[in-house]
């Protein structure tokens, strides 16, 4: 039986509580931000590693971002992935979904033949959730999105997944290769394996590719390849609320609430 080769798309994101807009420059202030692998991508990585446990083969991590992503990505190797390809070039900066999916697709093609491309459901910082199907379109392959389970039949070259739908699910089958997006929190990502942690942080586990390595069309990457432009950035205003504190014992408070509910729900 042949082995299964997968690529997992991973993004490194700032921990959400740490991002603010600088009121004077209107730019994102990430100076206090600690980073981590985008949590939904951890579910994708886990699903890929579980298939590797079963069918063998290799799990590659691909990520687009600055070189400082590297130590965060190595956590993936310590969990069991084989190698990291970090697509890093100043020319990639400012990419929207179109340019991002193009760049990732170029990187994935260069990695070599693959059966499944795994993505998290969405990123916790941008939360567009549009990368998986955009990537499938650039690569001109099938897609299975929002999966809570996946299996492959390597003899028939088929992937079968259970896709979460509103109020239900569907079981879908496609020919390999395919993009798979993984429903957030559908599995429990494994911990780092401390036996391999030491070599996970060795050199030689990470390959950096720039735009030239990817033979990327300069018109398709970064800001230049992004049709959308941000015209304004602001801290989200929240509606002003009354902030009236109710006092008293639980019973007294409850009576006040009953009157309040009566008034608000009957009008």
């Amino acid at each position, binding site marked *: 039986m042949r082995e299964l080769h997968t690529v997992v798309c991973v993004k490194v994101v700032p921990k959400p509580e740490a991002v603010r807009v600088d009121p004077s420059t209107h730019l994102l202030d990430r100076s206090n931000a600690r980073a981590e692998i985008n949590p939904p991508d951890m579910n994708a990585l886990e699903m890929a590693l579980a298939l590797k446990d079963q069918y063998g083969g290799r799990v590659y991590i691909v990520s687009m971002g600055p070189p400082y992503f590297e130590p965060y990505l190595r956590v993936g190797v310590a969990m069991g992935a084989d190698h990291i390809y970090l697509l890093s070039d100043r020319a990639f900066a400012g990419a929207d979904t179109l340019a991002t999916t193009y760049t990732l697709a170029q990187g994935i093609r260069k990695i070599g033949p693959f059966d499944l491309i795994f993505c998290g459901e969405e990123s916790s910082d941008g939360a567009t959730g549009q990368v998986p199907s955009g990537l499938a*379109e650039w690569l001109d392959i099938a897609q299975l999105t929002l999966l809570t389970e996946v299996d492959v039949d390597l003899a028939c070259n088929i992937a079968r997944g259970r896709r979460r739908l509103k109020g239900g699910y569907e079981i879908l089958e496609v020919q390999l290769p395919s993009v798979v997006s993984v429903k957030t929190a559908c599995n429990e990502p494994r911990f780092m394996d401390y036996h391999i942690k030491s070599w996970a942080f060795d050199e030689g586990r990470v390959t950096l590719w720039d735009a030239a390595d990817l033979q990327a069309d300069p018109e398709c990457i970064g800001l230049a390849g992004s049709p959308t432009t941000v015209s304004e950035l602001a801290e989200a205003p929240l509606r002003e609320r009354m902030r009236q504190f109710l006092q008293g014992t*639980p019973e007294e408070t409850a009576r006040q609430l009953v009157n309040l509910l009566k008034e608000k729900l*009957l009008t």
Partner: protein
Amino acid sequence: MVASLYGVQEECKVIWVYMEQEGGTLENVSLELLHKGREMADQMKWQLAGLLLGSGVADLAEKAFAYGVDEVWLADHPLLDCFTIDAYARVVFQAIMDGKPSVFLLPATPNSRDLAGRLAVRLRTGLNADCTDLHMNPEGELMVSEVSGFGGGVLALIEMRRHRPQMATVRPGVFSQGEAEANRKGKLIRVTVGLTEDMIQTRIVKRVIGKEVDLTRVPVLIAGGRGVEGDFKMLKELADLLDGEIGATRPPVDEGYIERERQIGQTGMVCSPKVAICCAISGAFHFVVGIEKAGIVIAINSDPEAPLFEYSDYCIIGDVHQIIPALITALQEAQEISYA
């Protein structure tokens, strides 16, 4: 920059809405998008068109007209009976290339998101996902999309000057639904569907569609956080008395106390109840955006410093395990009250 397949020169001054349907019923989010699309079209004195795909769904066109659509583009074909990305992307792409709309709006639902992601690449255009608001900027006839990121703390306004169509997706509950005008008429345009089975490589082995509670439209929301310690039974009892539904922040969902469909906030549902009662919820920003549209917010938390109090109308410092049972008792005693 790589050009989109058609540009500003070739665009038609029209707003298209993809009208998602399931089993012959238009999804509420489709009606919400039509309402917003109508408003934008009126502002620009443009037409509003609805794109409808399915099998045996022609009668939905009347409903679309009643909700303000000028033109329905209908692709009715047996192979469009159930959503497959292959068939739907192919047909929508063809319709878009025929109609060349300036603006194309889709619901941010599982199927339509897949569709939007594929089409944006196929058309070589931009896509603003999960918009929190949309409006037209008459200068330059551009759509301005408002999106929030980083757990909702940051807002960005996004435009697209040269690529068409201007695509955006919007989640259920973000826009309100308009009133139907029963006698409103429109034009039905039948899209020629050249689908054959070999074009569809996705095989649906099984499909189970259950009924799902629509938290976006419940009148009363009782939401619980980590501090509820998994006691959603208590919250359910309260919700039943008020004709409401229960929801939760992410931690109780992750811990398996409540279904993911009931998660409120940035990565969950955006609700607009008359009253939201938030029990032992600290108030992280990505939760607060989910109740931003609530009429009034009542917060109960034992921590006087809970950030949620900042975003609440009525604040109660106390233990939910005492306050909620007391409230349930008080409500039962006041049974003569009828709840709208």
